[in-house]
């Protein structure tokens, strides 16, 4: 394949679009901005498809890790360098297709959804910036490049969540998302530094090579250095995972995701469903060989964090009334599935099924979750509210949205033969073989998933009849909004038939997946039970849900309030940190520091009285404080700390 270097155009085209629209958008391009951005995205998507197709056909069965582009960006004296390049392997080939394709769909959809918005060009500029950053992230050949783009993704999502900057809640949400993920990113950065310090490189391939070879000097030194009783290697891996968990909204770093729904709905589809939030899964998959071969403990952590996130989010999703929040928690739950699939996987061969399953689910989830969000966008566009109580009976008014939404719900509920069924079965099988405890959690969660998705579906499209304001009736939102729904619906129905193990596996070799009817019986039955329960409770307007909620009042209330996790954070930050750290610090500041200065100042009160008339009267206190510190420090170093 001689044209592999074309790969750099995949991220560069959206970057060009961003620069163009960012500088000239508002003045010169105006309404054409959307079409221009969509055109660059289309070109980028076609190149991505071409590259992925070429890669998967040429190397069928044994996939190498290629580095078609590698530019040394910063080189340090001792051979360590930060490179900017493109790493092409099965997972990055899959990711460029997912990112460009979903981004293209969202671009097209936004042409209709954002029509008439005052800052139309700015919106598309931000979308392009985000797509560029995300592509740079998945193509990174160097862990530092990943970090740089990781942060850029954070900044561009900050801009997009806060797009409606005149809405205070949107501003608060964007800030929350940024700060929470920043804390996780700090861990990520320290993790990178630890891993690169011990492996002596920032390059992914070299790093994985040296940290998975049991005979290498690097691995032995990383495993033998300890800090607080845990080896440096484990610290590094855990901290890198922390970065991933923050971006992927894993428990307990998930609190930003529901609030991030304040952004425009197509943005939620792009960032908070299909691309940015799976960055954490992608990162774990990227360093998977290190985790599974050298630090299986960390992989165990990954598995449990994923499983806990999956079940908690699913339960919370059953009680939310804002449709985007339901989808947000559902995303968190599904990402939990992907995470624990990685957690239960091993490296290579049959036991690497979890890895393949996780990537497969990432792929199918991108299709049906983007579809759900875009469908939700169409509903919100029509009804001008996010609250389920304002909706109902919409199947008559929004036929296309209704059908596509139903298909996506069937896919996520794991009903055969829709896409979600295949990927979820693989995940469950992998969990069953390696970690039965996680398997049972996952089984229950998948039943709950079916329930809350169909609760959402019936509440929107059946139930009572919503009061629709017919005076500004604008139908389903035109061709631009319907086309992506139809294309994604095809994906949600058909993506499951791709023999994914042929393309993506932990060791680059083909993996045959096989289906076992007996094994599938339990999850499918639970899924159908969930659907029928939802139908019974929500298809017609009735008071069953209310009775149900009353019967389970304590638990229902806890779930409705998202298990009070936000409150716990608030309690910890406002009460504990503020009272235990902030108050004493302020007290010391007020009483001890000022007090000492005052005390020292009083002794020179005679002199200071006279100088006070000329200026503020504090400079002598500064001087006293200066002298006291100097003497104290000198005494400290002479007598105490020799």
């Amino acid at each position: 394949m001689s044209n592999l270097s074309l790969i750099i155009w995949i991220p560069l085209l959206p970057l060009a679009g961003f620069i163009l629209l960012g500088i000239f958008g508002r003045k010169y391009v105006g309404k054409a901005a959307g079409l221009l951005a969509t055109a660059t995205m289309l070109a980028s998507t076609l190149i991505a498809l071409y590259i992925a197709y070429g890669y998967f056909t040429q190397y069928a069965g044994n996939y190498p890790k290629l580095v078609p582009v590698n530019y040394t960006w910063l080189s340090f004296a001792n051979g360590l360098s930060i490179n900017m390049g493109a790493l092409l392997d099965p997972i990055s080939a899959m990711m460029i297709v997912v990112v460009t394709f979903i981004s293209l769909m969202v671009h097209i959809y936004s042409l209709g959804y954002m029509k008439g918005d005052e800052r139309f060009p700015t919106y598309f500029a931000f979308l392009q910036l985000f797509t560029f950053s995300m592509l740079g992230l998945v193509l990174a050949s160097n862990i530092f490049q990943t970090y740089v783009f990781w942060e850029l993704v954070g900044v561009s999502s900050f801009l997009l969540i806060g797009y409606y900057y005149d809405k205070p809640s949107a501003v608060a949400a964007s800030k929350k998302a940024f700060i929470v993920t920043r804390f996780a990113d700090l861990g990520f950065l320290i993790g990178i530094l630890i891993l690169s310090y011990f492996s002596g490189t920032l390059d992914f391939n070299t790093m994985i090579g040296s940290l998975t070879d049991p005979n290498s000097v690097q691995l032995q030194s990383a495993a033998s250095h300890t800090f607080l009783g845990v080896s440096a290697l484990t610290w590094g891996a855990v901290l890198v995972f922390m970065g991933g968990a923050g971006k992927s909204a894993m428990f307990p770093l998930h609190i930003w995701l529901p609030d991030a729904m304040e952004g425009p709905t197509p943005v939620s589809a792009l960032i908070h469903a299909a691309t940015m939030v799976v960055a954490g899964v992608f990162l774990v998959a990227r360093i998977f060989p290190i985790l599974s071969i050298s630090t299986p403990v960390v992989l165990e952590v990954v598995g449990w964090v994923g499983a806990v996130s999956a079940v908690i989010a699913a339960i919370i999703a059953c009680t939310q009334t804002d449709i985007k929040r339901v989808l947000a928690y559902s995303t968190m739950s599904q990402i939990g599935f992907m995470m624990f699939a990685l957690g239960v996987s091993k490296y290579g061969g049959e036991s690497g099924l979890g890895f393949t399953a996780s990537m497969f689910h990432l792929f199918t989830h991108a299709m049906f979750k983007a579809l759900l969000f875009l469908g939700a966008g169409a509903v919100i566009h029509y009804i001008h509210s996010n609250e389920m109580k304002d909706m109902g009976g919409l199947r008559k008014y929004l036929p296309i949205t209704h059908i596509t939404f139903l298909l996506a719900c069937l896919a996520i509920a794991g009903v055969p033969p829709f896409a979600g069924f295949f990927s979820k079965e693989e995940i469950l099988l992998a969990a069953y073989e390696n970690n039965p405890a996680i398997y049972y959690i996952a089984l229950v969660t998948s039943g709950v998933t079916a329930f809350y998705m169909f609760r959402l579906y019936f509440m929107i499209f059946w139930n009572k009849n919503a009061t629709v304001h017919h005076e500004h009736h604008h139908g389903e939102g035109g061709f631009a909004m319907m086309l992506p729904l139809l294309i994604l619906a095809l994906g949600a129905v058909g993506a499951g038939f791709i023999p994914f193990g042929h393309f993506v596996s932990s060791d680059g070799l083909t993996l045959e997946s096989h289906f076992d009817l007996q094994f599938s019986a339990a999850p499918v039955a639970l899924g159908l039970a969930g659907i029928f329960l939802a139908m019974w409770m929500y298809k017609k307007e009735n008071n069953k849900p209310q009775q149900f909620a009353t019967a389970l009042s304590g638990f229902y209330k806890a779930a409705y309030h998202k298990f009070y996790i936000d409150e716990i954070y608030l309690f910890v930050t406002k009460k504990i940190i503020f009272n235990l750290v902030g108050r004493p610090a302020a007290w010391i500041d007020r009483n001890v520091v000022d007090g000492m200065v005052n005390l020292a100042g009083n002794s020179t009160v005679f002199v200071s009285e006279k100088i006070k008339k000329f200026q503020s009267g504090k400079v002598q206190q500064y001087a006293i404080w200066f002298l006291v510190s100097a003497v104290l420090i000198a005494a400290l170093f002479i007598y105490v700390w020799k």
Partner: protein
Amino acid sequence: MIPDFIYLMRSELVVTLIIFFLLFVKIGKGMRNSSLLPVIQFLLLVNFLSHFACHCSGNLFGNMFLVTPLITMQKAILSLAVYLISLLCTEWLKKTEHLAEFFLLMLSALLGMFFLLSSGNLLIFYLSLELATIPVAAMANFDLHKRISSEAAMKMILSSAFSSGILLFGISLVYGSTGTLSFSALPALLNGSPLQIMGFVFLFTAFAFKLSIVPFHLWTADVYEGAPVAVTSFLSVVSKGAIAFVFMTFLYKVFQPLHTTWYNLIFILSIITMVIGNLFALRQNNIKRFLAFSSIAQVGFILVGISSNDPGGMTAVIFFILVYVFSNLAAFGVADVIAVSTGKETIEDYKGLYATNPFLGWILALSLFSLAGIPPTAGFFGKLFLLTAGASTGNYWLIIIAGLNMVISLYYYLKLVRAMFMDKNENPIPKIYVNRTVKWAMVLCALAIILLGMFSWLYDHIHSLVA
């Protein structure tokens, strides 16, 4: 000897010539500000470029005056900063009544700093430190009609006189116990006796005072707030840069035998400085005070880099200061433009700035991003190098605390960005006409902020000079 003298002291000679030129201008009929200022800006550019004339090293006056390519590079960074200040503060400078005197004082201080960087003896070190300080105090008083400006000058001169007293006491203790003032002879004679430790700590406080290291920082906020923006930016960038450069030579070369003492001292003070600087910056509402306290926190990070005690740390600090020059001057530049044309200085006033002045909004946001250390701005790489240098000593607690402080500082820098971009304002800052010179200087800073992190040759070049 004569060519040697001219080559080695060319930076000092150029500055002196400019000072004499300004004196003649003042004695003669005098020129109008609008025609004098471009001339001065041009001369400052010449001064900056003169550093690149030759790549020489040597010493003069019996080891009193040293020149190495590294020192020349440090002088070049300071000259660049002074040049940028003259461009960015064009608006304020045009209005000032005594333009020639202002630059006379600023260049005298710069001359002091040049000698400071080249000093090879505690005596010339002390003299040049005074030369670098006293003119700045006079500059702080340049808003002649404002009480607060005179107060700032008064506070500064009194505090530095006090600090000088302690410094002299320290120098005499060191001299008393070793019998020499020469930097090259001192290391062999230092044995860590209590007298020497006391002398060293007192010397240290002089640096701590100039760098605003907590608890020697008390003068900073008052002076920064009261002084005109041009002076504040000079103090926070040029003065601090010069002192930080000398500080490293001082610790790494002269006081290397007392390494354990100064490492522990820096360890404690860097933590206190970062924490206190950040805690106070959180509460500030005046933009100049805000930048003052945040610059205190930045000094804490510089100390983390200094603590490494190896060439990597020195490279990191020099690189960070270069980045800091651009980021901080751009921020002060915006503050100056706004203060001169509208008189507004509080963060409340900055709400909605982006809506009326998108250019200024973007420049300020970019420089704040760089100060906060958000990738991929140069500030991020500056901080990263500092932290990696600090980590090389194996003291991970220091790095963890520094990392947490980075996140805290992010919060307040972002708060200002949010105010500018997202908050609404009933009474926003009106559209301001920005002079073309100022605009270009701001664009230059912005480009440097974006590009410095991306091109490794500069970092490598500094590294090769250090090693």
